[in-house]
């Protein structure tokens, strides 16, 4: 997406980030990123002919959140990989939920007339 400021980046699925930049953005080392990949919490983008690993920019927000919680609770890296998997799943499900809610008709709140249901006390 075009922007006016050269230092402004959208963290979208189309954008790929080199491992060194991702490590810097998430205050991790490249060795720690590799370990998260080994544990299956982080999946690099398959890039043909690229010598360095690349990642989708969508992993930045959940990875930063997982690293934040790592610091707050002194978690080990394996726990961070589990956490990252769940955070990504939550993010995906939240997106699905927002999409479904957009497609659902919203109930109209109209003043009801006629007899009241038996559950409600009569006026």
């Amino acid at each position: 997406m075009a922007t006016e400021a050269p230092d402004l980046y959208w963290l979208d699925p189309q954008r790929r980030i080199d491992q060194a930049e991702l490590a810097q953005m998430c205050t991790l080392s490249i060795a720690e990123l590799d370990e998260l990949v080994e544990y299956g919490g982080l999946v690099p983008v398959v890039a043909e002919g690229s010598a360095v690993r690349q990642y989708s920019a969508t992993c930045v927000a959940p990875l930063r959140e997982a690293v934040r919680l790592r610091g707050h609770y002194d978690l080990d890296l394996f726990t961070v990989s589990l956490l990252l998997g769940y955070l990504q799943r939550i993010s995906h499900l939240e997106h699905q939920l927002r999409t479904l809610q957009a497609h659902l008709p919203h109930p109209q709140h109209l003043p009801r007339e006629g007899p009241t249901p038996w559950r409600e006390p009569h006026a």
Partner: protein
Amino acid sequence: MKYKDYYAALGVPRDADAEAIKKAYRKLARQHHPDVSKDAGAEARFKDVAEAYATLKDPDKRAAYDALGSRRGGEEFSPPPQWQRDFGGDAGFADLDLADLLDALARGRGARGRPQTVPLRGHDYETSVRLSLEDAHRGTTVNLDVQHEDGTRTLAVTVPAGVTDGQRLRLRGKGGPGRHGGPAGDIYLHIQFAPHPVFRTDGHDLMFDLALAPWEAALGAEVQVPTLDGAVLLTVPHGSQSGRKLRLRGRGLANGHGGRGDLYAMVRIDVPASLAPRERELFEELARESRFDPRATVAKEGGHGH
């Protein structure tokens, strides 16, 4: 510089072992974490225990801290002259607190084996902004208040047309300033759309509920519907069922590449809450004459099951 009693913050004795310190920290972190606790002072308390733990869990930092001796929390003190040399000569302590100083000392020793000035990267900031659909469609500028050591600064960020709900944006180098030659931090911006009274969004597509009278749905109609560009006439085909989606191509949000999403009118058939005598007559006549049974399929399917 003010002394902080890290042992008191964690509620452990000065001779507590690493395991006891970790256990005490995790218990307090869980109790006061801002994601969990809604108490007014929880965040400040969490920061205190996190700062204490960051020092006491690191043997080098803990040794340096212990070398200061036992003091009262809040007591003014001067760091040892050796620290001044270790930290980088003339750099001074004026803009540092105890935690920063211990951190820098540990990093300087650990990284290069001998003390020297350590470049520190500036803090990252995370924040969210709420945009109206109209602003997202046309593009807008949002003003962010960014905390710096020299006060609050306002940063104007141009959000181009084409943004969608939930998108995240990185503003590189716009966060807290670095120290000793370190790079500035970043700002991470989470875009959220404010609820709109009419439209809902799915990416660049817009949805809204189109209420139709039973006769409009049955016979078809031309109805005026809202769009972001003003009202337009929509042809409703005859026999439109409740839940049907009528698409207005290219009437959704701008996608930032010169195109636009679509607008979907979602049909909902409303009936009058009360009937005038003549309306009642007409409906009664329709009920007598019509052979339409909306439950015919359900009745057949129900019959198969028994």
